[in-house]
């Protein structure tokens, strides 16, 4: 939804209208959406925390988690937040080629993370942890899968954004659109830090 919202009132910033709060409609909407997303992940994380030790079939969390591997992919995702910041900063300086460069790198890092997750899921599946194997399996795949979908949607948004910038189709404030997608991207990263800590680092 996010990319839809960002373009809806693209004209707003163009004409320098004032809103009652001083925040643009788009940005306010994005913050509200992210606030709502907190509760979505809150529910999924709670479910996982409730069920992580409940293994009647298949492997136990400690038997399959590969902490070094996941640490590396977490690091990759965190670095993508840095490159996203650089993209937003370039967009504010109206430097299109730099913006494009940093957006590309951000998308690549995000895609690398998703690739790592696909690899991880495949490995876990081979080691006997299916989606239906145990409560742990169902809740692990649901939580991390939901997060992975969020990252993938983010990557798609970044790629679409680059296409739209290239074709000069943005009707509103270009830097703000980059910033909005940046907000979403950082949110997804922050959620991963919580998931990584609760799911992988704290032993069940």
């Amino acid at each position, binding site marked *: 939804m996010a990319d839809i*919202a960002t373009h809806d009132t693209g004209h707003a910033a163009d004409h320098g209208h004032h809103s009652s709060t001083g925040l643009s409609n788009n940005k306010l909407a994005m913050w509200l959406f992210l606030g709502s997303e907190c509760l979505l992940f809150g*529910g999924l994380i709670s479910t996982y925390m409730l069920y992580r030790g409940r293994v009647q079939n298949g492997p136990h969390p400690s038997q399959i988690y590969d902490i070094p591997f996941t640490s590396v992919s977490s690091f990759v995702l965190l670095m993508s937040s840095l490159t996203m910041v650089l993209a937003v900063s370039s967009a504010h300086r109206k430097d299109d080629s730099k913006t494009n460069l940093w957006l590309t790198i951000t998308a690549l890092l995000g895609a690398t993370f998703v690739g790592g997750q696909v690899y991880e899921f495949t490995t876990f599946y081979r080691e006997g942890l299916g989606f239906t194997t145990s409560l742990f399996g169902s809740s692990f795949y649901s939580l991390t899968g939901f997060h992975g979908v969020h990252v993938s949607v983010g990557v798609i948004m970044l790629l679409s954004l680059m296409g739209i910038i290239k074709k000069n189709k943005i009707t509103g404030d270009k830097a703000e659109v980059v910033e909005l997608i940046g907000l979403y991207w950082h949110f997804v990263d922050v959620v991963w830090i919580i998931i990584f800590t609760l799911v992988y680092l704290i032993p069940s």
Partner: protein
Amino acid sequence: MSTNELTLTPSESPSLSNKLTISPTQTLGAVRRPVNTTGWREWLFTVDHKKLGIMYGAVAFVFFIVGGVEALFIRLQLALPDGRILSADKYNQMFTMHATTMIFLFAMPMAAAFANYFLPLQIGARDVAFPRLNALSFWLFLSGGLILNASWFLGGAADGGWFMYAPNSGPVFSPSNGVDFWILGLQIAGIASLIGSINLIVTVLNMRAPGMTLMKMPVFTWMILVVQFLLVFSLPVITVALVLLMFQRSYGATFFDVSQGADPLLWQHLFWIFGHPEVYVLILPAFGIISEVLPTFSRKPLFGYPFVVFSGASIGLVGFGVWAHHMFASGLGPVSVAVFSMATMAIAIPTGVKIFNWLLTMWGGKIWYSAAMKFAIGLVILFTIGGLSGVTHAVAPSDTQQTDTYYIVAHFHYVLFGGMVFGLFSGFYYWWPKVFGKMLDEKLGTWNFWFMVIGMNLTFGPMHILGLQGQPRRMYVWTEARAGEGFFNLGMWNMVASIGSFILAVGVLFFIINVIKTTRNPERAPIDPWDARTLEWITASPPKVHNFDRIPVVHHLDEFFHRKYEEDEATHTMKQVATGEELVRAEEAAADADIHMPGPSYWPILLAIGVGVLGMGVIYGTPIMVFGALVVLFSSYGWVLEPSVPESIDFDTPSTDGHTKEIAPLG
């Protein structure tokens, strides 16, 4: 609100609508923008908050009839012992769909109808912040509602109660696809509500007319704002619950599989963390409506405006901390029960504050007993009865006796029917002349009111007795053997309740007759029939496409009233200095030039259809899902590439001073 009304298109002022000519913009190089559409297309592709509000209302009213007929089936089945109208299975489907329909497909969208229509008008805006998202919300809601009800014809409806407790709603006990349709329908309707709530919050926070501070906003707008915050933070929780149940039912996940060690309380917690705020989502809009109606028809300002506002906000806030009072019988442990019991009782305080404020608003006022006022007073009385029985549920030991009996059914029908529905009907009578430019018949309105009051008390009043006698909810039959004696005779009160439900239905029928009669009546309503107080009345009825010819500048709470009346220095009484008509004429004379409104769009309805098809794919297989996803993808890109407002060059020539006025959605 039958489909007849859809033909009652607001007639725009010819001078201004001519200026709103829009020429086509192409998106994706494939589909031309549906500008200058007329007839049914005008409704299908509209992004106008007023048209969407009317469509919300019309569809919600149809679902009100559907849910009402389901209720009548239930009462027919229970009128006599050993009822034979419905089988046990059909009965389960009937009460599940009755509650689901009434809550998700009538009450919430009807509140959305009022919010959509009046919120921008009350804050002096020309539309909501995201007009296309607004259209998307409506079409998603419709798509969710159709999916929910399609289950009747595709193998049976959901049968687990509107709370759909898992594991009871798992594939073992609910083998038909009914629960799957229910899950998908609610997910889609939930997305609609989430988008709608974000949209309305941004609208209220960002798009108020100059001078309208938060504490000068009408109470209805305030209550809608509180409700949208409740929705933003509670909907994702039920989304999680629904997704888990969907994964379990459709993809074999184990979340509610007790043999795997699952916790049956997980669903209950997730559901009620959403479900309790939902209760306030239902009632607060009605509170908002009567907080407009009571002052208008008492000829007095609302007593204690800040108290009404902040008690509404605190009901919303505390409402997030009381969900486990729905689970007192589940064995939560004494500490949890005590905490939730106390919190629940605490909610009675702000609610009581509101009731006293309404009473004191009427106190000493010159009360005009119009139909709208009758319904508003009805709400105050009936909601108070329901509120008092609600406090008895807050007392956990008492609640464990009442759980799953008709006493609970009596309670929530008093607060929801006596409270919410009466508030909505009050709103119908109050705002009908604004929306359609015609007055609903007051005499029929009085019949409507009395039949509904008597019917509702006959239906739900006896349920207190039935419940305290121990008649359980959701039982498809009761038997003579379990009947009490004398005054407590179950047979008598069940029959009374069933008769009452039909009296209630006749009351609703009076409303429908009233609507048909009003639609055929050529007489136009006056501009300001009620001597009203808020901004939505400072424009034509029905309002023009752009709502206000000139964006009003606000100086007072109840701005419209203060433009009509000024205080006489000598006598300290209010004296009329202008009529509503004069004020509206003055606004028209000073109309803004070159008002740009957002153009109609194909994408919202197309996207909603795509989401609906995608959802059906969960039940009917991957190819359908892929097709739905492609439609979603296509329409998302079409949406993004389409400017929300048709290009400037498509418009009329700018005004002579070179300054082009934009509509409110643009900031």
